[in-house]
């Protein structure tokens, strides 16, 4: 067998969920470790090898100059870079506060000075080129597992290209938008989550970002308006996870 691929996991500013979700592969993590050797994974390990990585995963948004330095290092040292999770691909929730950084600091810390060098939160893809973007807040861990296995075997990972509604219908869930008048972004959101929130009988909140290509947000907007949701509600709902589109 050939040598194992060197894997780096780098966390920028986020909730920790995307790194944690790697650990939630449980026993299958050991399958991944048949092909990969972990060089850097600060949540799980005290090792820092800081050298070359065959594959790197970056989670989170760039929210400080430190994040930007870590991201550039990861990019420069890695052959294949994966932007993992909606923070890294679309900016997610912290990327959606539309206010200049100094005003935000003033509102939260009572002072607009910036000794810790905070920046406006932006996704990884706004700063560097990536080889693969896997969105989701959090991403579907099956998708990451498959992607890591594919990359190890030299196969280009398959990316979902259909809305959440497809998986909702395959599961035969009742349409919560039409039947229950709940705000559901399923028709315009990238699938791949197996419509997990509709399983709870609730509407999709759009955590995987907008479906690229043939989506029809205008129609979604009209439906939500007809259900009694106001402009402000709809606009904020649309932008919650994906103010930055890749």
């Amino acid at each position, binding site marked *: 067998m050939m040598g194992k691929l060197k894997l780096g996991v780098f966390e920028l500013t986020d909730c*920790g969920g995307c790194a944690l979700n790697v650990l939630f592969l449980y026993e299958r993590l050991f399958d991944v470790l048949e092909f990969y050797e972990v060089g850097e994974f600060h949540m799980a390990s005290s090792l820092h090898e800081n050298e070359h990585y065959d594959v790197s995963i970056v989670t989170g948004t760039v929210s400080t100059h430190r994040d930007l330095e870590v991201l550039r290092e990861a990019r420069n040292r890695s052959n294949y870079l994966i932007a993992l999770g909606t923070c890294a691909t679309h900016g997610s929730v912290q990327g959606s506060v539309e206010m200049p950084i100094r005003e935000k600091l003033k509102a939260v810390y009572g002072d607009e000075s910036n000794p810790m060098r905070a920046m406006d939160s932006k996704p990884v893809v706004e700063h560097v080129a990536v080889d693969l973007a896997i969105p989701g807040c959090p991403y579907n861990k099956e998708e990451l597992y498959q992607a890591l296995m594919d990359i190890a075997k030299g196969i280009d990972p398959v990316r979902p290209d259909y809305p959440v509604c497809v998986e909702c219908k395959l599961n035969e869930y009742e349409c919560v938008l039409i039947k229950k008048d709940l705000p559901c972004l399923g028709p315009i959101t990238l699938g791949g989550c197996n419509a*997990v929130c509709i399983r709870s009988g609730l509407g999709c909140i759009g955590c995987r970002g907008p479906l690229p290509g043939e989506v029809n947000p205008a129609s979604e907007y009209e439906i939500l308006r007809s259900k009694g949701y106001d402009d402000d509600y709809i606009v904020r*709902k649309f932008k919650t996870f994906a103010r930055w589109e890749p």
Partner: protein
Amino acid sequence: MIIELREFTRVEGNGKAEIVIEDGEVKDVRLKIIEGPRFFELLTIGRHYYDVPDIEARICAICYLAHSVASVMGIERAFGVEVPEEITLLRELGLIGELLESHALHLYLLVAPDVFGYPDAIRMASKHGELVKEGIALKAFGNRIRELIGGREIHGINVKPGGFGRYPTTEELEAIERESAAFLRLAKRAVRLFASLGPYGEKAEHFLATDNYLWGEKLIAEDKESFHYAERIEERSLVYSFAKQSLYGGEPFFVGSLARLLLKGEQLTPEAKRLLEEHREKLSTGYVSYNNLAQAIELVYALERAGEIAKTLLDRGISGENVPVEPKEGEGIGYVEAPRGVLIHHYRTDSDGKIAYSNIITPTALNHAMIEVSLLKEARALYGEVDEGEMVQRLEETVRAFDPCISCSVHLVKF
């Protein structure tokens, strides 16, 4: 001279410490939270209450349900909505799942490598594979409960003001009752293993917790008088950190498993109570390092309590009815025990049900001052005695005992 230590590892989020040396002595230690600010309170201002718990859950993945439950409770209290016991028991069950998941991650995958001298659990698995597998199995069980109540392992949206999107079925509750009993043996073994750690760090003089075991109407401290947070906790900003620091009567205090056991031991389940008595002498010294042992005892509590709740709900039958929620102008505070301690969500709402004010105080922010005094004590004992590598390792162990959640701690707000 300032010695800047490398970033902490095997903790959740990005943080580091710097040690201030003057005249050859350790003068001060500063805990720097370098995770970027995330402005969660700004994100929810003006937003309709219905979407708020789902957004607040994103503050932290390890304790997302604690955030959504605290958010839901704060919103319900602002509207004057009261929910029946079925709903509070199910929320408590979700919090128990989260506690199991979080404590298992912390003890087996992050702390155990310190016990056996490995850089991480993956490398530890070569010699102690069984232990790693036990930890993973417990964590997976906790996550199954989180998925059942919360809707997903991470960031599910099933917990809503007034109830749930989906209620568990009889079969699902039976599985929880059965499995929680089966895991008890592992948890008791964990208590024996983690009883060997410590003491290190500082002794805590004050402890804070919610009045019920995993959530509350108010907070309590040593005197057991209940109070709202603003009556006894003051917050201050720090120039060197994105976290704010909290003090109790001007002094550092501790929140987390150790505080819960010491303040609310009488609420524990039988086997957990017995283990608390067995280790009470050690735990009552107040050394923060015994928080690891306290977490292991809470694994036993969580499994026993999960079984109790499942049984109660099965005996009564699930009605699955939500309470209607009428938005109105109001103010409410949700108090929850996240796995790593007290979590506070405070809201004011307007008559349309939109958020007008929000203040979120997280356990690691509450513990921030206590972490610093513990680091100071350790650094003073170690400086000049060991090399820098050893010092970082030992200081990391001290920080790790708090089970800090740095992602959570970075967005405290006062408008």
